């Protein structure tokens, strides 16, 4: 090795070093599976298999889960972009004009007015959220009315209910973040609802909102963390499980 040509041996040496520590051959084998997907046939639905024609008009309802997932991907992309510019600091400050303001709301103004394409990124985030929640709700209705939650899909239904709650929590935390009057009102309602739980009410409100009132503005940072870390982590994991179960068990159609 030492006597060899350096130019000729470098590649082999470097890749050999890498290869002995990160064996890629078994993984490279997986590419064959990927190539075979080209040949893969989507499983035929019951209606296709038996050439049924009467319930064709239900079929658009079967892409609602997919629509909510596409909306979630768009939300992730636009959310990452918004996160570059958003400042999760809701503490009250006095502006030069004498009005009350805060750093979070100021950063929203910056996104809307100064950042190139900022307003359209925020608009995409806003409308994708509405579309996702509507699609999730309609998806639940479709699953309910076609009885798709029945054996053996009970577990997937439970996952779906948790995902519905996570989606609603995404929406709620999302409109707390601009630190405007709407978020103040929503935070007040949330704090009151948490405080109404018997015995642990105040502790629960302090845990979720940082305080038992909105005055200090601690709820912005706390719900920012919930919105950008906890909910995406739990939600993405559960979504993967949810879709894997559909993949394994097949689409449940009425027949």
């Amino acid at each position, binding site marked *: 090795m030492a006597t060899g040509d350096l130019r000729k041996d470098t590649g082999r040496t470097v890749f050999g070093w890498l290869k002995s520590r990160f064996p890629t051959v078994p993984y490279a084998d997986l590419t064959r599976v990927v190539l*075979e*997907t*080209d*040949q*893969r*046939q*989507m*499983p*035929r639905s019951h209606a296709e298999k*038996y*050439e*049924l024609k*009467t*319930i064709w008009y239900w079929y658009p309802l079967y892409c609602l889960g*997919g629509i909510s997932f*596409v909306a979630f991907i*768009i939300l992730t992309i636009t959310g990452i972009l918004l996160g570059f510019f958003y400042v999760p600091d809701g503490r*009250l400050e006095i502006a030069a004009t004498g*009005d*009350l303001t805060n750093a979070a*709301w100021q950063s929203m103004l910056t996104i*809307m007015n100064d950042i190139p394409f900022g307003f*359209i990124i925020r*608009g*995409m985030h*806003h*409308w994708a959220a*509405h*579309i996702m*929640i509507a699609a999730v*709700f309609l998806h639940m*209705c479709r699953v*309910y*009315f*076609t*009885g*798709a*939650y*029945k054996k053996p899909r009970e577990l997937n239904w*439970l996952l779906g209910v948790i995902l519905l*709650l996570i989606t*609603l929590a995404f*929406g*709620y935390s999302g*409109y707390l973040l*601009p630190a*405007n*009057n*709407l978020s*103040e009102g*929503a935070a007040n309602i949330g704090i*009151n*609802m948490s*405080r*109404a*739980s*018997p*015995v642990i009410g105040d502790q629960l409100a302090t845990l979720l909102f940082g305080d038992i009132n909105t005055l200090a503005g601690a709820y912005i940072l706390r719900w920012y963390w919930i919105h950008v870390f906890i909910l995406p982590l739990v939600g993405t994991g559960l979504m993967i499980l949810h879709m894997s179960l559909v993949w394994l068990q097949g689409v*449940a159609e*009425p027949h």
Partner: protein
Amino acid sequence: MELERVKERVLEGRPGFPRAYGPARVDHQPGIPLFPQEATRDLVVIFLLTAIMFFLSSYLTPFLGPARSPQISELIVPDWYLLFSWGLLKIADIFPTFTLGAGTPLAAEFNPVFWGDVLSGIPIIALLLLPFLDRGREARPAKAPIRSAIGTASIAAIFTASLYSIREVISERWLSPNGAPLIPDNTQKWFFVIPPILVGLVTYTALRRLGYQPMRRWLVPNVTVPAIIVCAQSAAILLLPGWLGAEALPYVVWIAVHLVLLSAASAAVAVAVIALPETRARDVSAWTIVLAVLAFAGLSIYMDATDRNGYSWVLSVLYPNMNTLLLLPMFAVMTAWLGTRRPYSTYEYLLNECYQCGKCHTVCPVTKVEDDALGGLNLVYNTFKKQHDGVPLWTCLACDACSAVCPLDIKYSDYILEERAKVHAKMAADGGEREWP
């Protein structure tokens, strides 16, 4: 192998029995390839969705109001998908307020916000329990009328709870001519409960009817009781002194016209359902719906154009009683029509449960003697696919042997008789009956 050859021959030409799965499959109906067909279809949906989002965000900029401040003067309304929870929070003030264990560290206050939490928790718990409560095997909405009725009632309840959450807006913006709220809070509270119940009942009646059930036992109470309530309340409003205030009295004629219209529509369908045969009752309810809607719309347009003040007084009588005077007539006519409707598409609905077990073909006496039917005729399946070439339609004995063995209880001879009746009706309509006077 001999067995393989036999299998080949038996399954020859029968759809739905693929011999192999995956890329090697050679039967006549392969699945849809992922690429490019399925991928194209998905990309169309994805691009359309993205385009809609771009369009919305270009033209409808999301709201960013003033920065947060401790004094909130304007009415705060949460996003639409949380309105139902907010409505439940507001409706919870009907529950009692008390404190358990006051003065101890474990004091629990039962206030409206707590009851609102409980009310919001009920749907979540119901959703979590659903797959363990509903364990039947029926998947189709039309064949599970109770489940479907609960579903539509819940959707209606989400709407009415969301509406109740803006009760302050309704009380401020909609006023009767004397300045009082047009819809009192009590009426709004009942409006949260009553529409879901009515929607559930209508759904149940309509779906049972789709399955060819005679719905008379449901129709008679569901139509007559609302009709009696509407007529009695209209009579009370008009005849009992003191129901109409002195201010509304000059407009009593117009109020009477509206009340008589609503009472007449409900009474007409009630009489039709009780006294007439089903086909006549269906016609009467259909015409009642058409005429009542036209009359009501014409009346509103006419009064809005000529006598706005009088119309305001009419509305100030109707709206406080909207749960009875407006909802019940709508419920009565809809129930009467849907409950007597001719469920023309249901037989296809029933036949498509067939999974080609072939038991009907085995027991059918006609297939043993009819030449046309000897080879591979699967009665129900081929009929559903309209591939029977008329053989079962005109040679069927209606002996019902097929229904007796059908694992899915498909009532085949009912279908045959229905189809024959249709053909006869068509022949009669074409003038066929003149040949046999």
